[in-house]
Structures are given as structure tokens and as C-alpha cells.
């Protein structure tokens, strides 16, 4: 089947190498457009002044952090059902980016909180859920790094990603419920009275840019992972970059 053609590391390596630069370039263009819209064009908010502009980073980053976890769960299901090795590698490649974005979401959320509500951390439902999502990412990375045997590492990681994905909605709703009970009239960092269409387009552009960035970085990372995993295979030994590296080392 044509689809499984790319399930072989050899072909996926080449595909990733071809796609990643285009995705990165397109992502950069969209990011510039989105930032220009958000920081230059969009009007300042009636209540929050100029400082609200950090939502053009905070909201897309939060969306992407959650989306990447769903993507990891998707690849995990593929890996468990079709037993392909590439699925485990793609899940691994996505995890560090997802963790970084979750951390950035917390960071930008704190930076927004200080000028607005006077405090860096608010136990808001979304921020708390994002914190737990960060722990889920870190747990996945820690487990897959600790297990040396590749097959067990991939499959254990897939199980963790799936169990986490099933739990994320439950965790989100329980934290939301907890938040309304304890905080009462709490602040909601992503609430705005009205969203002008220009603000919305700015956020959407940034989200798209981040999605392309995440895809490009994941594909680049998966190439390194493929090389590391398959280093004894014949096709790796014949790669131009590997031969060049070997020639350089022999020359020095």
C-alpha cells in the first residue's frame, strides 16, 4: 500500500528532509504576518492597554501544546495498531516541542498576569491544566529516556501517551470544576469582552505559524532519531552526509 511506503525509515527520512525546510519557511512568513497584525495593526484593548498583546503568543502556544499532545496520541495509536517503528519515533520527536510550548504557555501566562492582576501565578483552570499537561509531557520524555531497549521504549511511551490523552479531558474538567468552587469570581486569562476580527486573525495566523514550526522541528528531529536508531543499517552508511562526515574525520 502506498501509505506504508513512508512507514519505512529510509523513505520517511527523505520525505522529512524535503518537507521540513518548506514548512519552516512558510511558518516564518506566517509568524511575521501574525506578529505584525498583533503588535502593529490591532488596536489596543479598552481595558487592558498594550500589555494584552501577549495573548498573541500565549493563546496560540497553548492551543499548540494541546494539539501536539493529541498528535502524539494519534501516532501512538498508529504504532500500537500497525506496529510501525516510525510511529514511535514521530511521537518521540513531537514530545520536546510540546513540552517547550507548554512551558512557554505557562511563562507567557505568568507574564500577562503580573501587569493585569498583580500576581504572576493564578490558579486559573486553564493554567493549572497546562501545568499538568507539562507534567504529562515530562513524564513521557523521562520514561522513554529511561528505557534503553528501543521497542519496549516506544511501546511503553505509546501507552503513556494514550493513557494521558484519555485522561486530559477528565483532568481539564475536574480542574475547571475545582477552580469555580474555590476561586469564585476568579480571573480568566483568556477571557476578553469582545474579540475584534483583527485580533482573531492575528491569533489564527500565529497558531498556524506555530503549527508549521512544530511540524518542521519534529521532522528535523525525527531525522536525527532515525539516524541514531538505524545507524547499523546499510542505507545509513551510504548517506552522503554520513560519508562526508567520515571523510572529514579521516582527513583530520
Amino acid at each position, binding site marked *: 500500500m502506498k501509505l506504508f511506503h513512508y512507514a519505512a525509515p529510509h523513505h520517511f527520512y527523505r520525505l522529512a528532509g524535503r518537507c521540513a525546510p518548506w514548512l519552516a519557511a512558510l511558518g516564518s512568513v506566517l509568524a511575521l504576518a501574525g506578529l505584525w497584525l498583533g503588535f502593529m495593526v490591532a488596536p489596543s484593548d479598552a481595558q487592558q492597554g498594550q500589555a494584552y498583546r501577549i495573548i498573541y503568543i500565549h493563546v496560540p502556544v497553548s492551543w499548540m501544546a494541546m494539539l501536539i499532545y493529541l498528535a502524539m496520541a494519534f501516532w501512538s495509536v498508529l504504532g500500537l495498531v500497525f506496529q510501525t517503528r516510525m510511529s514511535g519515533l514521530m511521537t518521540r520527536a513531537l514530545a520536546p516541542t510540546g513540552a517547550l510550548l507548554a512551558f512557554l504557555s505557562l511563562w507567557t501566562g505568568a507574564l500577562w498576569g503580573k501587569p493585569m492582576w498583580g500576581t504572576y501565578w493564578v490558579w486559573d483552570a486553564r493554567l493549572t491544566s497546562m501545568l499538568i499537561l507539562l*507534567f504529562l509531557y515530562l*513524564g513521557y520524555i523521562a*520514561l522513554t529516556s*529511561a528505557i534503553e*531497549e528501543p521497542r519496549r521504549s516506544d511501546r511503553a511511551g505509546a*501507552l503513556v501517551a494514550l*493513557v494521558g490523552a484519555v485522561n486530559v479531558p477528565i483532568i481539564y474538567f*475536574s480542574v475547571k470544576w*475545582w477552580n469555580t468552587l474555590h476561586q469564585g469570581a476568579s480571573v480568566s486569562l483568556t477571557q476578553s469582552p469582545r474579540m475584534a476580527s483583527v485580533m482573531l486573525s492575528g491569533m489564527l495566523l500565529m497558531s498556524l505559524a506555530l503549527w508549521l514550526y512544530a511540524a518542521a522541528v519534529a521532522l528535523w528531529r525525527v531525522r536525527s532519531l532515525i539516524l541514531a536508531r538505524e545507524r547499523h543499517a546499510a542505507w545509513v552508511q551510504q548517506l552522503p552526509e554520513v560519508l562526508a562526515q567520515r571523510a572529514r574525520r579521516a582527513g583530520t
Partner: protein
Amino acid sequence: MRATPPPVPSPWLAMAALLRRDLRLAMRRKSECLGALFFFVLVAALFPLAIGPEPATLRLIGPGVLWVAALLASMLSLGRLFEGDHQDGSLEQMALSAAPLTWLVIAKLGAHWLISGLPLVLLSPLLGLQFALAPEALAMLALTLLIGTPVLSLLGGIGAALTLGVRGGGVLQSLLLLPLCVPVLVFGTGAVDAQMRGLGAQAHVSVLLALLLASAALGPWACAAALRLALE
């Protein structure tokens, strides 16, 4: 030599045998089981020492502190769940047994709860008295722990199986498990809080029961899959 192999046995006998075996083993190693219990009591005693003995404050933090202490004590006892069986080869025999591994896992997790979870439930009212909780709150605390500790055992089984034989397994297990236990924690303490404020706690208890059913349905299967991975 029989011409045909014996018929498929009912899994209940194997489960009952495994449950009895684990209980018997726990009885022969009482000190290990009591360790987690002492930890529970100690942690619960540390908080008043750290925060101050004022009854109003203690009443506020009591349910939360006791729930977190129960959670940590469960984490502690999970390390022993599959380690012994893995090292002496019993886990392989269980994987090869005539009864499906999922059922045997249920028996093992059940035994674990009886040894580690149930004592926490029985001890919690006594510790609740230290936090100046009213009798209704004590009863609700015990009820939520009764429903919540099996969920901790079920989820903990998955974590223990995934980190079996992995270096740094204990801390890794906690890192994997604690985010997943947040819903149980939130609804367990929420129920006691609602009880203390005079609002009904039925919604919370229903959600806890739903969490128990969901983890009982899916947890053993995930745990068995992780165990087979560990045996490869």
C-alpha cells in the same frame, strides 16, 4: 499423557488463588506493609507541626492533607507491586498461565488494595480527629478514600508495570502517576468540603464512582499490556 489438553479453566479459581497467595505473602512480611501505613500517619502529623495547631486552620486543610498523605503512601507501596514477582520469575509463569493476564492483574491489584489501601481508609477517621473534623466529615472522608484508593491502585498498577525493571523507577512512577490522580484528589477533597459546608456531596461521590468504574474497566488491560512489554 492426556490426548487433549484440559478444558479452559474458569479464571476465578486462578484469581482467588493469586489473591490468597498475595495476602499470605503480605502476612509473612508484615513489616513491609506497615511501612506505608506509618508513612501515612507521619505525613499527616507533619502538617499541623508545620502550620500550627489552630483548629480552624486545621479543619480547613484537614481533608486535603489527609488525601495527599494517602496518595503519597499509595505511591510508596506501589513499588513492591510487581517487583518481587518479576525477580523470582513468577510474572513469567503468570503470563503463561491458563487464565488471561488481565484477570490475574485484577487479582493482584485487589490484593494490593486490601493490604495497602484498606488500612488507610480504616485509619483515616482517627487521623481526621487530629484535624478537628466533625463526625459527618470523618464519615465522608472515609467514604471518599474507600472509593478513591482502589482508583489509585488501578492507576498505580499501570505506572508500576511501565517502570518495571527501569532504573530510577520509583520516582519515574510517581512522575507518571501523580498527574493522572488529580481528578480523584479534586473530587475526593471536594466531597468532604461540600459535606462540611452543608451542601450535598452526592455529585462528587457519583463522579468518584464513575472514575472507579472507568479505571476498573480500562486499567487492568493497560497494566497487562505494560507487563507483557516488561517481559519481552
